[in-house]
């Protein structure tokens, strides 16, 4: 039985916006198992990024954690002291986010960045940092000796992404969060990067949370997939189950609505219905106005995310116990 590394329980995160309160994450329960790559998939605005950042207790200034808990190896993250939190971030958990490349300091070369990152958290002699940096840069398939002396403007987008990845691994984190890491990469670089992620995972056994809106990327990388819709997790299953036998109507409709280079063009169908307003979501099941199977209960009661057999989770009244 796989060990749980991260456990999210009843997590609700809200934002104050001009029109009222926006609930970006709505009573979410999720377990991430040690050693897996979990894909968190959903369209823009579904809350996946907010959820992921909350794991390391990072919320936008105009947002707040309304309720819920996050446990990492059994420790309550939200109750950690400043010092514990500081050590937790980057040592236990590292994060590669969209636009991380722009966070590189233009007046520091790559080795300076590596040293900075390490010394912020541990007292380690420079020589050891050098060895570790070279190892990691080689692992991300860069010309290590050369790249170490380069400045950010001398690196291409793809190279910066690899440097960021190597930096995130410096302190040997147990858990890596990747938030849309390939959004600014060209197709070829993206393919190589996704392969690299799997290689790092296979070599180092790091648990990973891979957040994306791109179903192609998640199919390439994830062992298990959690699907989010309008602040809720509505289905969880292993990658093949989700793609070949989706249970939740939204999952099925989403997969069917993406045109790709494979499959029959005629099979592609749009998801019907109006896009919901995140500040005023529909009552009951949030997907019901767009769901072909919706019945009375769906309009009134929000379905819980329950185990529908064989570890598959779905939040849909079609599967509720009678």
């Amino acid at each position, binding site marked *: 039985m796989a060990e749980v590394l991260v456990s999210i329980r009843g997590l609700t995160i809200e934002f104050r916006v001009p029109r009222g309160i926006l609930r970006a994450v709505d009573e979410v329960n999720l377990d991430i198992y040690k050693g897996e790559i979990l894909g968190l998939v959903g369209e823009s605005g579904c809350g996946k990024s907010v959820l992921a950042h909350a794991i390391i207790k990072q919320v936008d200034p105009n947002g707040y954690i309304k309720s819920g808990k996050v446990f990492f190896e059994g420790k309550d993250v939200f109750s950690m002291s400043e010092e514990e939190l500081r050590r937790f971030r980057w040592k236990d958990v590292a994060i590669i986010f969209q636009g991380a490349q722009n966070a590189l300091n233009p007046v520091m070369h790559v080795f300076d960045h590596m040293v900075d990152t390490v010394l912020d958290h541990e007292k380690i002699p420079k020589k050891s940092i050098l060895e570790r940096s070279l190892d990691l840069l080689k692992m991300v398939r860069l010309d290590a000796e050369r790249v170490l002396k380069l400045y950010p403007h001398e690196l291409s987008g793809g190279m910066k992404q690899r440097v960021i990845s190597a930096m995130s691994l410096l302190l040997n984190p147990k858990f890596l969060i990747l938030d849309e890491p390939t959004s600014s990469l*060209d*197709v070829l670089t*993206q393919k190589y990067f996704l392969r690299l992620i799997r290689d790092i995972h296979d070599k180092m056994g790091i648990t990973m949370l891979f957040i994306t809106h*791109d179903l*192609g990327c998640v199919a*390439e990388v994830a062992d298990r997939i959690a699907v989010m819709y309008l602040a809720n997790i509505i289905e969880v299953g292993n990658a093949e189950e989700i793609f070949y036998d989706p249970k939740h109507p939204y999952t099925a409709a*989403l997969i069917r609505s993406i045109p790709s280079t494979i499959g029959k*063009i005629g099979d592609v169908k749009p998801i019907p219905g109006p896009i919901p307003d995140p500040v005023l979501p529909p009552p009951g099941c949030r997907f019901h106005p767009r769901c072909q199977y919706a019945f009375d209960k769906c309009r009134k009661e929000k379905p819980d995310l329950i185990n529908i057999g064989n570890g598959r989770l779905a939040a849909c009244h079609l599967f509720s116990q009678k």
Partner: protein
Amino acid sequence: MSQALISVENVSKVFSVGGGVFGKKKSICAVDDVSFQINEGETVALVGESGCGKSTLGRLTLGILQPTSGRILFRGRDIWRLNRSEFKEFRRNAQIIHQDPYDTLNPMRTIYQSLSPPLLHYKIVRNRKECWEKASELLEMVGLAPPEDFLQRYPARLSGGQMQRIAIARAISVNPSFIVADEAVSMLDASLRIEILDLLLDLKRKFNMACLFITHDFGVARYFARDGRILVMYLGSIVEVGPTEDVILDPIHPYTKILLDCVPIPDPKIARSKGIPYIKSLEIPSLTNVPVGCKFRTRCPYEKDVCSQKKPELKPAGRERFVACHMFS
């Protein structure tokens, strides 16, 4: 043989960059000696990665940019040799749908105020009353009903999908024979794209408009241009042309092959079983330092001596197919 609607003949567009106190001026060739035709009512997808010159090429076909060399012909006439009224008539016939709906819709104007100017400018309508009626009709055509609900609204009150529908309404409002859709669905959520693509396909058929559909997404290109052709672009040049399904199922040019091999597939078994294609370098050459001869040779697994000596031209490579590669001369 009927005349093409749009004919691009050896068109190049060179931009000057840099210069000033800190460096020398450099020239980049965004579009490099490109030739192709679009026929009445035809769908042509122009596919390539960001920076390949496809948007610049799109703007050249519309007369928004002027070529540095070469000609753009509309129904056989060089658009840059037309007189004022002829050019105005051409611009009415050639419309654009931008990636960002805010490039079409002024946030300080109501929807009606965005739709009315072209209707009046091209005298599609004779007075304000007809203009309001026509605008209403257009909104209904793009699925925004009842139109009164939308005409007085400002763009900020609309979703991305709704704004893009209005951008389409504006483009078709002047009865064009040719539309350029430049990454028209890229800013929309993936699940919304099909609705907009279906709408565009429907209107295209109804009004027999030709469409140059620019995108970096092969899946979207395949869906939209299923009955048409696909042009693949790399660093300013067209490297492969052919019927859409043929090119996607059986690409010939090494770049097209590698690109299609790397497109993420929403199918775990297929995605995992595909090996990673070999490429000599992941780095795309800068447009200020383009390889001599074939521009793809620095990354091509099949590079030979001739590739650094001569630039390959588009040559026939099967039924309605063309490839620019020395392996297939």
